[in-house]
């Protein structure tokens, strides 16, 4: 036996369900352009039927029981893995590009041209060794060579400092992200105690994890906790960074000692705070890129970062100074004295790209350029010729058998090849990451067409349910007002 007003409940449940779905649709449309948002769906099902009616099991309408978000954790993990590679290489690409700017080749101001000009000046001197203009010219061009090397050296050292600064920034960024994520974990946990998913908060957390994955390599897992609620665990290099509502802080420890002119000193190592300076193993992301660029000296298969180029410049300055001075010492200057060091040669520290410069005694007295092999006349150019031959001398350097030109070329080739590789790696890994990102958007993104269709669908369902109520009203009207009038 059905109750008189029971039908209203069925129709009302339809109204409510349609309204709930319309709310979700509206929520989706509103967040269509929200970064990291995943579309939501209101789940509905037929409500518990009544039992006992002789007709059969009678339906009681509809109920909404959950709002879920469409999100693939597989794609998230994949994206984080790909994103860290992309970010690492794009940092390297940017840094190496700026190094290419430092060396500034091919151009009319690079090391090549000043070396050309220096040797050209020596050639001119070989024609008129007694001419003071030619002598001053040689000194000027030598100065240009040394200052160009100095400038390149300083810029490399400044780059090391800049990168070091960026590393410190990234570390505090990681700490800030960890804090936010741990905070969100707390909220999500309390929201989900009731058994429902905190969809929007989870989206926010994923967005922060996206950001974290661009800085370092992370592995994210959800560990089952009591009451079926999950604890989230983020590991960095095998060590827990965030565990549910707790997180470990990273810190930077500066090298002892003041800044040195060669770039060492105050370089920061990344350690776990409060762990007796245990170093963090960074395996990817922007931070890995920055560390490689700052620390890589190309030895033992390490990356060729700024220190590699700095060492090369130092070796150039040292090799060139030694070879040039050795030959210059063999000559006789215009005043009949044995040639002194042409380039300044300190006892300590070793000659490097910063202290590389022309001997000040030579600058004050150009006559001290030892052009001749013996003091038998101003036009004896034998030693100048031997100095010029140094341009083809292949034994100046320890890491490369080649002329000074070859050496400069080898520096630039290494830079060009590395920069080219970084560019390619960045492009390739970006394509991969982009693809995964697209897949994620394809799955979780809001499709306006779909939402509009849903809107129409739910609106019509709502209208139909409303019409149901009108119909029931009409039936009741009949029952209440028009029945029992027989005989009136």
């Amino acid at each position, binding site marked *: 036996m059905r109750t008189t007003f029971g039908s209203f409940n069925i129709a009302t449940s339809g109204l409510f369900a349609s309204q709930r779905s319309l709310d979700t649709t509206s929520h989706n449309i509103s967040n269509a352009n929200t970064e990291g948002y995943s579309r939501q769906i209101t789940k509905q099902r037929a409500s518990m039927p009544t039992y006992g009616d002789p007709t059969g099991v009678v339906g009681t309408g509809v109920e909404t029981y959950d709002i879920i978000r469409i999100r693939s954790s597989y794609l998230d993990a994949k994206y984080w893995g790909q994103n860290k590679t992309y970010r690492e290489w794009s940092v390297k690409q940017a840094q190496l590009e700026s190094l290419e700017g430092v060396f500034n080749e091919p151009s009319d101001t690079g090391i090549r041209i000043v070396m050309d000009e220096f040797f050209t000046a020596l050639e001119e001197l070989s024609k008129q060794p007694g001419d003071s203009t030619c002598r001053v010219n040689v000194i000027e061009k030598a100065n240009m060579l040394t200052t160009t090397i100095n400038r390149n050296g300083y810029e490399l050292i400044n780059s090391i400092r800049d990168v070091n600064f960026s590393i410190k920034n990234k570390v505090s960024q990681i700490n800030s992200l960890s804090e936010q994520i741990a905070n969100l974990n707390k909220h999500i946990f309390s929201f989900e105690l009731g058994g429902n998913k905190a969809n929007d908060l989870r989206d926010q957390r994923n967005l922060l994890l996206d950001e974290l994955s661009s800085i370092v390599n992370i592995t994210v897992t959800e560990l089952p906790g009591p009451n079926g609620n999950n604890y989230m665990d983020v590991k960095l290099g095998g060590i827990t960074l965030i565990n549910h509502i707790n997180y470990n802080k990273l810190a930077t420890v500066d090298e002892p000692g003041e800044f040195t002119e060669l770039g060492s000193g105050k370089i920061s190592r990344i350690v776990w705070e409060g762990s007796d300076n245990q170093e963090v193993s960074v395996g990817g992301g922007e931070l890995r890129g920055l560390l490689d660029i700052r620390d890589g000296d190309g030895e033992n298969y390490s990356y060729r970062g700024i220190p590699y180029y700095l060492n090369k410049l130092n070796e150039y300055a040292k090799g060139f100074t030694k070879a040039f001075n050795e030959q210059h010492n063999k000559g006789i200057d215009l005043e009949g004295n044995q040639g002194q060091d042409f380039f300044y040669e300190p006892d300590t520290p070793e000659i490097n790209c910063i202290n590389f410069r022309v001997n000040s005694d030579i600058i004050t007295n150009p006559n001290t350029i030892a052009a001749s092999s013996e003091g038998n006349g101003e036009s004896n150019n034998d030693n100048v010729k031997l100095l010029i031959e140094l341009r083809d001398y292949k034994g100046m350097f320890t890491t490369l058998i080649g002329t000074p030109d070859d050496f400069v070329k080898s520096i630039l080739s290494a830079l060009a090849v590395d*920069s080219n590789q970084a560019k390619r790696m960045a492009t390739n890994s970006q394509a991969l990451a982009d693809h995964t990102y697209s897949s994620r958007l394809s799955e979780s993104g809001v499709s306006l067409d779909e939402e509009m269709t849903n809107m129409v669908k739910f609106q019509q369902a709502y209208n139909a349910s409303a019409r149901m109520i009108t119909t029931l009203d009409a039936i009741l009207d009949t029952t209440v007002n028009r029945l029992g009038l027989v005989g009136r």
Partner: protein
Amino acid sequence: MRVTNSMIINNLMRNLNKNLNRLEKTQRNLSSGKKFVNPSDDPIGVSRSLRLNTEVAAMDQYKRNADDALSWLSTTEMAAKNINEVLKRAKELTVQAASETNSINERLSIAEEIKELRNQLIHIGNTTYAGSYLFSGFKTDKPLLTTDGRYDLGGGTNKLTFDELIEINIGVGDRIGENFVGQRIFGLYSPGDDLNITTAESLKQQQIITGSYLDLDNNPITAATSFDITYAGPPAVTETINLVNVPYNDIAVLQSEINNAILASADLNGHVSVSVANNKIVFEADGEFSIQSGADIGINENEKSVSKVTTGDKSQLIAIFDQLIADLEADDTEGIGSALTRIDNQFYNVNAIIAEIGVKMNRVELTSNRILDDTLNLKDLLSKNEDADIAEVVMNLKMQEYVYQASLSGGAKIIQPSLVDFLR
């Protein structure tokens, strides 16, 4: 696959950006005219471009050097030709003076003109090029001759040696000696030397060198125990010759002992020889060399060779003129007659030198032309290596512009419509 709006927009943005990047790169190629701007654009190309640029710079320098050497050589040639003219005139006058019919007065006036010619020779010997004395070897700031026909070289005990050759680079490992040391033309004369046999002429026959003379003057050498022979090579070597049987009374014994020592040295054997002539020990070599003795044996004092002249030494060429003037003034017809042969000998010498200058100039000119060719080739290579092919770049640019515009208009189309536009 499910397609969502943000996915479309994301993809569109990425592709637009990619197209724009490509367009920017092509535009950069077009505006710079180069195939690459950064080393990473083309590592190998950049490395090659660096090498080629350096080579072009070196070639430019070699060209300048060759040009300088050429003007130096042509000034030297001019001077040598002037000497030739002077000798020609001197010969005419000598022939005229040698005729027995001339009176003493006529010979005196000829002597006056010969004096002028002699002074002119000294003047030519001190020719300068851009402020540098041409014939003074490395001492280009010092004149070659004094007015009395002796070597000047700035006074003191300055020496002018044969190896004072100012060589400049006119190619990789290619050098040219642009100067001629003065004694090759002006010779060396000591009182008692035969004016007919010019030391300078002996140079001509042996190309570079020379003889060094060890003069015993019939006196036994008593103090000498050793001396050094330095031979310029290749290979360069300095050998010490030990004299064990001091004192020597027979010059032939000394000669054979030195000879044995030379034969014993692998580097000197076949290059340096020793002989006896006019009671002198004479060294000869096929290249530059010098004899250096210990201070106490006096060989240095008696050493005589045009491979080296010292301040105060007399020029043979001038000595011939001085002798001629003296003979004219003394009316010595026999002496005047013998001057003819002497002047002829000098003619040969100077002509040989003019020929040598010509050969050198020829070589420099050839080299200079070759440098020009090489430079052209290098610049061509450089251009092929780093210059953008404008036609190709413009074509690419147009294509990329088109692609970019197409993607933009495509973008405008996708962004526009959604179901929203069609619902009432």
